């Protein structure tokens, strides 16, 4: 659903118990920003589900201008908009779910917003804050350092131009700050955050509030926040939160902090059981908040609509968002974008959201979709084994998804796009279904999944982390492989050369794509293993000769193209690719049935 905050549609998901007790405590999950937002998405979903199962209505949402909410990071007063969104989420819970008491759960930056909203009179009573700094400048310093350490700044644009470090990490229009997740904080937001000291923004009625501060592994809760609560008479509890590091991993590896979630439910229940000072304090305002199942907003001067979809595909229930034009005629092609690895449908650096809105404003309906157990799709698959991303059943589901979308009245000619595994699904769906007129694959890992591709080409065994239950022999092999890892790239090249004569399914696949007129855009960073392999055996030059095949070199080393010049490069290449698909559609007859 979407709720309206300052007239901006905010994407939200509510988690409501089957029956809501009178006087139940509602829970607002306040999202962090950027990388931490990506890492904790699954955790916040599980946490909100657990709240609902325990009888507490919960709501989680995307900050205005980020992820699936409307707007951009460049819109004015983001900090004010984010604070208001927290407040409106709390009001929605109080009004729609009848909650008598509201607790806000804030991790990192989310906790800072929970405080700001509370200080501003939001109907929030209790605060659960995990690793929340009292000063915004500490947060900015950590954000800046994380980006500088972890984003590869090596870029070479056309003509051999190498952008400066500042150009890589800041936006030319407003000098913002790039986060490790490839998300931008505008300069206005950075300035506002840098000046922020929570302890200078007192909370009303602190003596009526309950506060639970979670520490981190080896890091105490912020001393100034703790002293503030101690001095103002809030009911304060400080406890360990040792699952923080495990939670803040790339989505595929992120661990849900089960013990901390359980403790939070207990903490909420304790207040309900004791009927802990439930009366409202002065200064807390509940406002009426409009909500709806779709969102309409302007993009590039055109009104577009976003609608969350639930698609029952095979035995799975997949979540997707359709972006479509409202008034403009619908184009002849529908774009479908898949989640990147275990990151949800928003795409690397929010690229899918931005592409969907650009394309919808040109009349092209675009669907961004979560595969099973990723993002908001149902399922509890962990994708611990890389092979799970390349399960043939995903290709079957992809084709069935196209059936469902066509049955909804969307055009029966598709362009599929994905990053890494998502590119693999797109390509293989095109080989199985002639309705797929175009494929965009960014950093495709391999054309065919097999033991060689994964363990040698992809180097999975070298980078696999040791697990506590690994037998000693596995641990010894891993340790040896890690020591030998420096030798791997040259050894791999030798092996590739030695096996170049081997029959390759790739030739047959490329012939088929060419014969059926499928436009293919392959985008690679220079160090991507498959690109290296194709370059090594001279195949890149062959591909570039094919009329339906376009190979784009992403001019930087960062796998998820986080530096801003790379983000712009990828967006432009995708737009050009889409235009080629549209042009091809004007000159070729519509596709027939799926090929055998």
């Amino acid at each position: 659903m979407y709720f309206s905050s300052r007239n901006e549609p905010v994407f939200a998901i509510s988690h409501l118990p089957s029956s809501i007790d009178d006087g139940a405590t509602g829970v607002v999950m306040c999202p962090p920003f950027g990388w931490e937002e990506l890492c904790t998405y699954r955790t916040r979903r599980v946490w909100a589900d657990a709240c609902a199962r325990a009888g507490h209505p919960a709501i989680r949402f995307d900050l205005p201008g980020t992820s699936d909410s409307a707007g951009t990071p460049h819109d004015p007063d983001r900090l004010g908009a984010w604070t208001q969104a927290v407040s409106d989420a709390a009001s929605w819970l109080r009004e729609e779910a009848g909650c008598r008491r509201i607790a806000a759960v804030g991790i990192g930056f989310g906790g800072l917003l929970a405080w700001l909203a509370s200080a501003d009179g939001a109907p929030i009573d209790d605060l659960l804050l995990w690793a929340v700094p009292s000063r915004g400048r500490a947060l900015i310093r950590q954000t800046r350092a994380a980006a500088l350490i972890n984003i590869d700044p090596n870029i070479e644009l056309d003509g051999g131009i190498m952008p400066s470090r500042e150009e890589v990490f800041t936006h030319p229009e407003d000098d913002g700050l790039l986060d490790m997740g490839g998300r931008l904080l505008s300069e206005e937001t950075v300035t506002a955050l840098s000046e922020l000291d929570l302890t200078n923004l007192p909370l009303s009625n602190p003596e009526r509030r309950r506060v639970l501060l979670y520490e981190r592994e080896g890091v105490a809760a912020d001393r100034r926040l703790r002293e503030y609560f101690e001095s103002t008479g809030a009911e304060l509890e400080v406890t360990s939160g040792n699952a923080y590091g495990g939670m803040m991993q790339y989505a595929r590896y992120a661990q849900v902090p089960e013990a901390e979630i359980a403790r939070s439910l207990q903490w909420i229940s304790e207040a309900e059981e004791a009927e802990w000072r439930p009366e409202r304090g002065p200064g807390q305002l509940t406002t009426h908040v409009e909500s709806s199942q779709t969102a309409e907003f302007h993009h590039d001067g055109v009104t577009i609509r976003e609608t969350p979809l639930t698609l029952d595909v095979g035995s799975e229930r997949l979540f997707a968002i359709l972006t479509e034009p409202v008034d403009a005629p619908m184009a002849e092609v529908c774009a479908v974008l898949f989640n990147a690895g275990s990151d949800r449908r928003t795409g690397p650096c929010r690229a899918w959201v931005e592409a969907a809105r650009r394309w919808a404003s040109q009349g092209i309906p675009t669907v961004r979709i979560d595969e099973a157990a990723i993002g908001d799709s149902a399922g509890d698959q962990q994708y611990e084994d890389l092979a799970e991303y390349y399960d043939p059943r995903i290709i079957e589901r992809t084709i069935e998804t196209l059936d469902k979308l066509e049955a909804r009245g969307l055009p029966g000619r598709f362009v599929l796009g994905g990053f890494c595994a998502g590119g693999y699904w797109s390509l293989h769906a095109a080989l199985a279904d002639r309705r797929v007129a175009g494929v965009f694959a960014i950093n495709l890992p391999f054309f065919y999944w097999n033991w060689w591709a994964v363990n040698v080409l992809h180097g999975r065994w070298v980078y696999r982390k040791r697990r506590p239950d690994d037998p000693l022999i596995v641990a010894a092999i891993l340790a040896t492989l890690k020591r030998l890892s420096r030798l791997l790239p040259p050894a791999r090249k030798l092996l590739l050369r030695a096996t170049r004569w081997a029959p390759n399914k790739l030739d047959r696949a490329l012939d088929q794509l060419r014969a059926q007129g499928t436009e293919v855009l392959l985008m690679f960073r220079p160090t991507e293993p498959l690109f290296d392999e194709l370059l090594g055996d001279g195949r890149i030059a062959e591909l570039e000769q094919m009329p339906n095949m376009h190979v784009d070199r992403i001019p930087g080393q960062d796998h998820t193209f986080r530096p801003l010049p790379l983000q712009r490069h990828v967006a432009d290449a995708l737009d050009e690719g889409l235009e080629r698909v549209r042009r091809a559609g004007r000159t070729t007859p519509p596709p027939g049935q799926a090929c055998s």
Partner: protein
Amino acid sequence: MDHGRLAQIRRVLDQYAGLSEDANTLDDHADLYVAGMSSHASVDVMIELEDTFDIEFPPQMLNRDLFESIAAIADAVARLQTAA
């Protein structure tokens, strides 16, 4: 190399890097990211190193290579301490 400094760095890594093995068993040149240090943890390591050695890493010094190994960290810390 200064063994006291190396020992302090290993202590910081043990506490904050989330390594899959004991930092004391790691070779000075072992890749810390391969040894399990996450991107997020690298920032915690940086902040704790600053506190431990009373230094501040300037932005132009911050990059992935800086935290790639114990030896690289020790070299950077030594340079900052010398410059101070």
